């Protein structure tokens, strides 16, 4: 999808792509003082924004004694990977990472699949109660999951799904906002394509699978990525439903399980960085989709 939902009129040059051709407004000189000031401002902001992470990295690469002594950028005892080694040897982080990968993937698959099917029905099919369902689903977007933690946990107690995988993922696969976004998108797919296929005898499912879905790859990708990121980073529900340390996802495990040795700063920062890496890697691979996804939907993953 190359156009933006927000502005249908002639878009300005894409300034995100590289930085080589620096577009400028007429009347601007390339190295005007305004641009230098802007550049400096950007550098200052970027430094401020990168600083916390850099500090975390610096702390993680030193011995515990250095980490517990005065704050310096270069540790007195030099850099070392022992914090990472210890954290990895303890075995929890790799286990939690796998739990996160598996649960986030399954949540993404189920959410996207069910939402797409429902969105297609709402946008293309006519059936009794369709409009009411649509209104109900859109209205449900406003319901914050935080309000539902008590009844959902009660339900998990009743269904005996506390500390189970099903209990973890099922409440997380309901995303009315995604249905809404997809329904809007599907409605814009040229109906002639589908009608042509229907005339040829294709079933609804076939039309959906072979025509609508392939044309929707960008939006599906964007939604999948956002659902994945949201599921990966989700804290509240996984924190409530999972107590067994071998089932915990990464954010929950990091927060809940402490070391018998007490607070160890270097290892704590090493854990944080190891936990941050997977999604950063995802971002580096899917940068374009993520950025495009935010701009095209205008709603993103909220």
């Amino acid at each position, binding site marked *: 999808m190359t156009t933006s939902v927000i502005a249908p009129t002639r878009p300005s040059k894409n300034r995100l792509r590289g930085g080589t051709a620096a577009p400028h407004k007429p009347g601007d000189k390339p190295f005007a003082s305004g641009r230098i000031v802007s550049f400096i401002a950007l550098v200052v902001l970027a430094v401020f924004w990168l600083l916390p992470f850099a500090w975390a990295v610096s702390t993680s690469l030193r011995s515990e004694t250095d980490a517990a002594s005065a704050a310096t950028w270069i540790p007195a005892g030099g850099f070392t990977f022992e914090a990472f080694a210890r954290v990895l040897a303890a075995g929890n982080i790799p286990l939690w990472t796998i739990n996160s990968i*598996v649960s986030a*993937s399954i949540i993404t698959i189920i959410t996207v699949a069910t939402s797409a099917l429902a969105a297609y029905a709402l946008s293309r099919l006519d059936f009794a109660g369709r409009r009411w369902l649509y209104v109900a689903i859109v209205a449900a977007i406003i319901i914050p999951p935080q309000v539902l933690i008590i009844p959902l946990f009660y339900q998990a*107690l009743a269904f005996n799904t506390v500390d189970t995988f099903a209990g973890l993922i099922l409440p997380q696969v309901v995303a009315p906002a995604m249905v809404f976004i997809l329904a809007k998108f599907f409605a*814009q797919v040229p109906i002639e394509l589908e009608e042509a296929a229907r005339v040829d005898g294709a079933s609804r499912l076939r039309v959906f699978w072979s025509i609508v879905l*392939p044309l929707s*790859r960008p939006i599906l990708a964007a939604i999948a990525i956002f659902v994945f990121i949201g599921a990966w980073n989700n804290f509240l529900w996984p924190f409530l439903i999972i107590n*067994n340390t071998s*089932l915990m996802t990464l954010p929950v495990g990091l927060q809940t399980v402490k070391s*018998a*040795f007490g607070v160890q700063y270097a290892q704590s920062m090493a854990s944080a960085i190891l936990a941050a890496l997977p999604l950063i890697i995802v971002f580096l691979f899917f940068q374009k989709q993520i950025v495009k996804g935010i701009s095209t939907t205008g709603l993103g993953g909220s």
Partner: protein
Amino acid sequence: MNSSPILPEKRTPLGKHKPVSRRSMLLGSAGAIGAAWLATGLTGCSAVAAGGVVPLSFWHLLTGGDGIRMSGLVDRANSENPDFKATQTVLTWGAPYYTKLAMASAGGRAPEVAIMHASRVPGYAPGGLLDPWDLDMLAKNDVTEADFPQLVWDKGFSDKKLYSVALDIHPFILIYNKDIAKKAGVLGSDGKLPPMSSPEEFIAVARAMQLATGVHGLSYGYLNDGSQLWRLWYTLYLQHGATMELPPGGTVKMNTDAAISAFDFMRKLLDDKIATSRGDYATAVAEFVAGRSGMFLTGVWELPTVQSACMNVGAMAIPTLFGTPAAYADSHSFVLPHQNDPDKTKRADSYRFVADILKNSFDWAKAGHVPAYLPVTENPAYRSLKPQADYVEITKIVNYDPAAWFSGSGSDFQNIFGQNLQGVLLSGADPAAGIRGFVQQINTLLSKPSPV
């Protein structure tokens, strides 16, 4: 709104294939990881691992020196019982631990064994969050009533069933620096402090210590720590011969005069000369360890910290200054969190695991705690453990928190106490008013039906 140009089915609108193949590669590896994950059967169910070793999940909230010692005890239990393997999970002390334990127990798939403060059990047992201990099975593992101080054993009961078996008793005591005491001229020939049986005598000794260090005579931290404030105050309050009761549906029963008297004494101590009036836990530790004070009002659990600083210390129960010997204490106790469908082998192994740790709790004493298992403390070898042997008799005078579903170590009860009464020491607020506020909030809690 423009839509993308109509394209034949085979090509994607973007005509790009790179993102797809990269994505499918990632998905493929994710699938492989997922398959491996499932294959290892990490579903958290009670599957016996290969080789027949029964895994036991053991939760506790001990960190620092305590945590290290407990790790050692767990390792020892595992090596002495090769047919099970206990893995410990440590959660943050206080509400985070207790909340998670309650939720796990409510969910029915809780850890096999856990440690709780004995004072917190009334908030768990009646609600069905704990499974009772089988007395016969305990006896088979050499754990009987006769092996514990009566007070401590009885504390584990709720509604005539035993829900907690104590590992230790950890009271609030007085640790003193023998070198500074000698310098202050208050160290007896037996290497102990002189007997103090009144507030004035205690203050006199503290003043002597202060002159010797030139900084403070005594260290005590309570800032932003309701539990710390409670521990010392409750000791002094009990020493007046007073008690506190929290009858459900009723109102707090306490002796206000004794309460105010205890605060008055604390204020006299924390006059910024003998001791700082705004110390918190960490600074108090640091001050005593650095030799800037001679006396330390703290729990026994700080003994290893002090000893590892190579200090020459003695320890004793807080002297009886108001007539009745008493001390605040709590116990780390073993409990069986509720399981919907307990595995028989794991249950039996849990008993053996607990019994093993109890029998080896001489190691635990090195962390400063008084082992609850009498065969350990009555063993002559214990007498050589100094200074722990000097306060082993304290178990006869200890008191747990008044029982209620909301009281106990790290509970709302202790937090409410701190919030209402910290100002008395910090800014000279009126103790009577603070006590009124505290009682009012507790009465509100009492008036509500217990959710347990």
